[in-house]
């Protein structure tokens, strides 16, 4: 309806918006976890030998990210003490509430990764106990590992895909309401997960292994992979935005308003700086050979996807449903769903990474691939 210019809202109230800073952070965590799992499956399930050295490491990373992620959700709940109600009641809404699917996935998925990690590292654990690890056992474990990985791939896709479903199902919010949202979320997740791996892998190889050497070829490979994931992400975003803004029904007015007002944050920061630049670094050999540039690309893309999550979750809610124009969001510094919550969640992630990496002999397994080469 083209009455907009003839209409002024002169008095209204400010409506409530439920989701704050925890939610983009949660989406970033689950997405990166799914991506880390998929990258580890390159070697475990698809037999791509070049990714073998980092398969174990990224599997553990996927696990840690997914243990930390749900804390964001619990913190976002207004009544976190009532979690049990989720399990007891409301099962008639199972077909129509993606949140209902999500909690089940969030419980099944980390258990599966943990099982896979235990199977993968069983030789090292049994050797530590002084028990011989037989050939027969090895074959059995290998088959089990492939099986778990094969189940894990759809589960990893679902665990992040459902978050896209949560948003896509909300027809009240034009920025959320698109069936492409789960795929869009998965594509951007691959970008952030690869970015995170690019940041963490050299740190761990350099400082926490016996061989103390960064695998530059692997870094270049990951930068290349990152660039391709960005291509996929951009293609999906292209389809999304062209349909949503150009060929849409009245939702397009809200989206034009939103993207017009947030032009700088969305187009310049998110698309150009955080996607095009890392993509160029990954594809141009001059940059991808340099560790510094690759690290830079990793950091940019990880931050870029976080901004994308923020722009989607917070930006979507900022669009007025009954009030004109946009709402503004200022996260609290302390308390539930605050900046401190997110900082705490990251601290928990770091603590968990430290604990898991200390418990699992990932460095010994990784060293196999590098000592053999020499």
């Amino acid at each position, binding site marked *: 309806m083209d009455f907009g210019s003839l209409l002024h809202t002169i008095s209204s109230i400010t409506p409530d918006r439920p989701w704050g800073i925890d939610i983009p952070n949660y989406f970033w965590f689950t997405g990166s976890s799914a991506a880390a799992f998929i990258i580890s499956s390159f070697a475990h399930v698809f037999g791509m030998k070049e990714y073998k050295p980092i398969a174990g490491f990224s599997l553990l990373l996927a696990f840690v990210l997914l243990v930390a992620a749900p804390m964001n959700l619990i913190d976002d709940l*207004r009544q976190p003490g009532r979690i049990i109600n*989720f399990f007891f009641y409301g099962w008639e809404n199972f077909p129509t509430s993606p949140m209902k699917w999500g909690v089940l996935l969030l419980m099944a998925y980390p258990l599966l990764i943990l099982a896979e990690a235990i199977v993968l590292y069983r030789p090292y654990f049994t050797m530590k106990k002084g028990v011989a690890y037989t050939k027969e056992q090895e074959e059995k474990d290998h088959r089990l590992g492939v099986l778990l990985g094969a189940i894990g791939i759809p589960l990893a896709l679902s665990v992040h895909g459902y978050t896209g479903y949560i948003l896509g199902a909300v027809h009240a919010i034009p920025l959320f309401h698109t069936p492409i949202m789960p795929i869009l979320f998965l594509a951007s997740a691959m970008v952030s997960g690869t970015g995170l791996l690019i940041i963490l892998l050299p740190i761990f190889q350099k400082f926490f292994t016996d061989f103390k050497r960064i695998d530059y070829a692997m870094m270049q490979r990951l930068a290349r992979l990152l660039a391709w994931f960005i291509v996929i992400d951009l293609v999906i975003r292209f389809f999304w935005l062209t349909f949503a803004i150009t060929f849409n029904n009245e939702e397009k007015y809200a989206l034009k308003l939103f993207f017009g007002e947030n032009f700088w944050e969305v187009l310049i920061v998110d698309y150009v700086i955080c996607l095009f630049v890392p993509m160029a670094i990954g594809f141009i050999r001059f940059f991808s050979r340099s560790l510094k540039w690759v690290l830079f690309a990793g950091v940019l893309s990880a931050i870029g996807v976080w901004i994308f999550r923020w722009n989607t979750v917070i930006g979507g809610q900022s669009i007025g449903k009954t009030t004109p124009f946009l709402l503004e969001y200022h996260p609290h510094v302390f308390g539930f769903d605050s900046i401190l919550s997110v900082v705490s969640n990251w601290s928990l992630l770091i603590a968990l990474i430290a604990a898991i990496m200390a418990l699992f002999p990932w460095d010994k397994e990784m060293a196999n691939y590098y000592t053999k080469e020499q």
Partner: protein
Amino acid sequence: MPSKSRREFVKKATGLIGVSTLASTHAHALSLTNPGRDAKDARYVGQEGKRFGMVIDLRKCVGCQACTSACKSENKVPKEKFRTYVPEYELGSYPSVRKAFLPQLCNHCAEPSCVSVCPTGATFARKDGIVVVDNEICWGCGYCINACPYDKRYFNPISNVADKCTLCAHRVDHGLLPACVESCVGGARVFGDLNDPSSHVSRLLATFPATVLKPASGTKPRVFYIALSGEIQSLPYSNGILDDAVRKREGALHKEWSSKGE
């Protein structure tokens, strides 16, 4: 050996007790809906056979906000939260301008998008169509608040869960009118049973062309408007001019979410 058989007995007995406790709690605990509905509590079931709704005759609304204040005091709606309110609009451009009022409340939709997404079954539609929230079950995830296309849900800062208009179900169940209808000075708000063809609401709907807000959202609202201007029917995304009285007084930046207008 006696000690062995005793151990066996203890094992079996604890196992049996364990399994039966688990089974019994399961039978009671796992629910498709929620405990209130399972127990067929009258407040949860509502008035079977009826379908409550409202007709708002905008020709009679003078924008006095009596409904807004009556609702707040009847339902003890916390500060800065509203179950119903009457936004004011200015239509047209100078010199041919006029004011419009649009009383809004939960539409008690026939296809409520807030209910279908609820992961705890805390929010549901009663048999008479009134959509309510069980504030002892709701875990406050806020999914329903985002799912409502009409912005008619909020977090109640006292109960710390989602809250909304109940069409004054506590009054309606005792044969009274909702507070906003009772207090409407112009008689713009009319409440009644849509299933009863002789009710005031049914007669109004049969007599006058009526419409609903955002019909495209597919929620089938059960709050109808007579003489609703096309300009405000879909609550369009308009300019950033908004005199948000509450925010102006309280200050915008201290709030988590605030309106951007002037």
